């Protein structure tokens, strides 16, 4: 039913934020928390009460129809219409401040955990926020690497059976992030091979991708991400005894002032000799009063936790460049060169100034050392390994943007599974999608 004009809908549901929008735009139309507020009365007693009595009833009456009948009636009374009473996104956070709603996040660690809530979340985001009829649009959804195929099937069931959407494509986030890097001038060949460093709010992943396929065995996780940087800044502010040390202030400071320095010691000296490096951040309180917060060494120390994790955490001590190196070394040998050549950044926590440059320098150091030692041992001359980290303007919503880029191409609809395919073959067709050819 979708006409040629209607743009595809791109939905990138992450752990913390969800990004929604139409293909062809350069930024998502909506970015809001991946939260749903449900009425307390409905979700509270749902799983507990009605199961046990019905089980006992079945042992005595031993007829299945009587259980289901009894169970059904209690179910209706208990839950009633309250199930239709919910909010999503920012409205959910607002509603959860009151006593009658409870807040939950249906996605955990990138994977959908609560399908009931997710279905309702999709419903509202499609109809209320994007204002589109799913029957008229093609959809591009994203999934984390190593998402079980059952999750894909569940997603397809919801998209096709509840929403009758015209067509569906489920893409791996890392692959979309690679596609988004094509906008950078450094990228020449538009291949889908590269290493993606995806750092959001909760966790940082290093994902090698070869020809559009994720190398699952080599994926590495770093338990440091945006949230840890924010709390690091907050601690520094508290230790110094600033007047305002809220999480919000720390977050604003992170976004406005932080950058990555080439050398900490030199940077400390620079700060001490040039007092103008210290910045001031104005906090506007609710009562219209303005509080001034000094911003000092945390400007360069906070992002430094990626490169020297020991300053913030006690149990995780491997610097990010080493992790990237290990990750590429764990990949098949024939793609390693290309993985080093195309390291792509994605996610909000990679937005610090000079982040890419520092990573490239440190990684180059590691790689060159290895090359030299092998040259010494073998006595032959190596052709060298090119290390290149690509940062670009769309890093923040790279996954979404990559989706938008691919879904606006003419071939996109050919790659999708349509409602008719689904009805013909069943949910397991979404286990495989043909890959986008590099255009």
């Amino acid at each position, binding site marked *: *039913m979708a*006409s040629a*004009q*209607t*743009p595809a809908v791109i939905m990138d549901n992450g752990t913390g934020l969800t990004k929604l929008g*139409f293909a*062809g*735009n*350069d930024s998502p*139309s*909506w970015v809001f928390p991946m939260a749903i507020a449900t009425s307390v009365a409905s979700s509270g007693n*749902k*799983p507990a009460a*009605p*199961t046990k009595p*019905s*089980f006992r009833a*079945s042992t005595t009456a031993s007829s299945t129809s009587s259980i*289901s009948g009894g*169970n059904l009636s209690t*179910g209706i009374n208990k839950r009633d219409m309250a*199930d*239709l*009473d919910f909010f999503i996104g920012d409205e959910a956070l607002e509603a959860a401040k009151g006593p009658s709603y409870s807040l939950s996040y249906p996605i955990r660690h990138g994977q959908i955990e609560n*399908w*009931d809530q997710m*279905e*309702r979340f999709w*419903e509202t985001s499609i*109809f*209320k*926020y*994007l*204002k*589109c*009829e*799913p*029957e*008229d*649009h093609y959809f591009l959804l994203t999934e984390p690497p190593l998402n079980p195929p059952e999750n894909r099937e569940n997603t397809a069931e*919801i998209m096709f*059976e*509840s*929403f*009758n959407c015209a067509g569906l494509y489920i893409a791996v986030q890392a692959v979309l992030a690679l596609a988004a890097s094509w906008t950078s001038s450094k990228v020449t060949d538009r291949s889908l091979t590269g290493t993606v460093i995806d750092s959001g709010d909760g966790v940082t992943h290093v994902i090698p991708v070869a020809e559009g396929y994720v190398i699952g065995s080599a994926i590495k996780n770093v338990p440091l991400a945006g949230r840890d940087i924010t709390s690091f800044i907050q601690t520094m502010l508290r230790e110094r005894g600033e007047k305002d040390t809220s999480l919000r202030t720390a977050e604003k400071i992170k976004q406005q002032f932080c950058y990555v320095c080439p050398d900490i010691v030199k940077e400390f000296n620079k700060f001490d000799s040039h007092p103008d490096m210290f910045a001031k951040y104005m906090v506007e309180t609710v009562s219209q009063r303005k509080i001034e917060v000094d911003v000092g060494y945390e400007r360069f120390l906070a992002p430094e936790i990626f490169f020297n994790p020991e300053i913030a955490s006690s149990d995780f001590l491997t610097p990010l460049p080493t992790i990237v190196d290990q990750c590429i070394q764990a990949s098949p040998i024939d793609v390693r060169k290309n993985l080093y050549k195309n390291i792509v950044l994605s996610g909000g926590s990679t937005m610090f100034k000079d982040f890419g440059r520092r990573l490239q320098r440190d990684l180059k150091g590691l790689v060159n050392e290895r090359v030299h030692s092998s040259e010494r041992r073998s006595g032959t001359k190596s052709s060298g390994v090119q290390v290149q980290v690509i940062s670009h303007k769309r890093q923040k919503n790279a996954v979404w943007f990559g989706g938008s880029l691919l879904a606006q191409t003419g071939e996109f609809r050919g790659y999708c599974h349509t*409602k008719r395919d689904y009805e013909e073959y069943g949910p397991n067709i979404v286990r495989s999608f043909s890959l986008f050819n590099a255009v």
Partner: protein
Amino acid sequence: MLQLEPQNPLIKESFTTVLDKEYAPISLDRIITDFDFTSYKISTPTSKTTILFSISIKCWKDLLNYGVLELVHSRYSQYPFITIDDRATQDPGYDLSLIVDLQAYHQVIDSVNVDELIEELSLLKRNCFAAPFLQAFNRYQDLSQNVKIDPNNLYGEDSQISSNEQVLKLDYRDAESIYIKPSHDRVTVIFSTIFSDEIDKVFSKVFLQEFSDARKRSIQKAPQVINSHNEVPLEIKHLVHDPDNKDKVYITFVLFPRHLNTEEHKWNSITHIQLFRSYFHYHIKIVKCYLHQRMRFRVNTFTKILNRARRDVDEEEMRAERKTASGRRFEQRV
């Protein structure tokens, strides 16, 4: 709770930032869509302070016949800084453009009710769709003044004059249309829809039944809703080319004088009726979500019950001698 707003929230948001006093002009290029194959584009092709806001509607040709341009002009020409481009000359593929000149806007910013303006802009789709409705409402007013009420016509049957009245037709989707028929004592609006899914069709029946039931029970002021699944309503029988199409569902709304007596009521009726199809589908889908939720819950309960049947096997039993189904013994190696 499950209400769809007639405003487009994205347009509202865009213009709230753009029309802000402290807005720093940037170049824009945004595509936004709405229900029923409507799409908008907000862009700044010439300069950052000239915003081109274009709309494309599938049934634009029909709307043109019903005087959409006059309506748009009457709604938006009160703002001196908005120019209306009837043919969207700057945006090929779109039907109508509003050009908002921010520099001119900032000169008169104090005399403008900004909230109202933003509201009005985000209601562009509704305003376009209102044209045929308003035309029908006006026709109804003419008729109602000219036609004497027949005291013998107790059941409100169509009189001879009004049954020949022209029906306004709007092909707003691929194979679905809105028909509007004015008469001297009512305006009839008929939707024809097709369901791509058989299950949806069943839900629609239940749902529409609820409309008439609710009317009987409490909300007597609501317009009458008649729903016919296979039969073409008499009012539009002569207009339908494929009367035997079994997939089509016809839904008739009868708007009575009380829905049309004031300007406010009129617009209220238009707003709700033109959103009806989307609203209808939205609810069918949320009902499915609800049922799926119940089904998942039920499966979980059954799984739990089944799991209770599983026997706890203790260590001793594990080590004990066991037999296969055919009776052969085997020994477990630890």
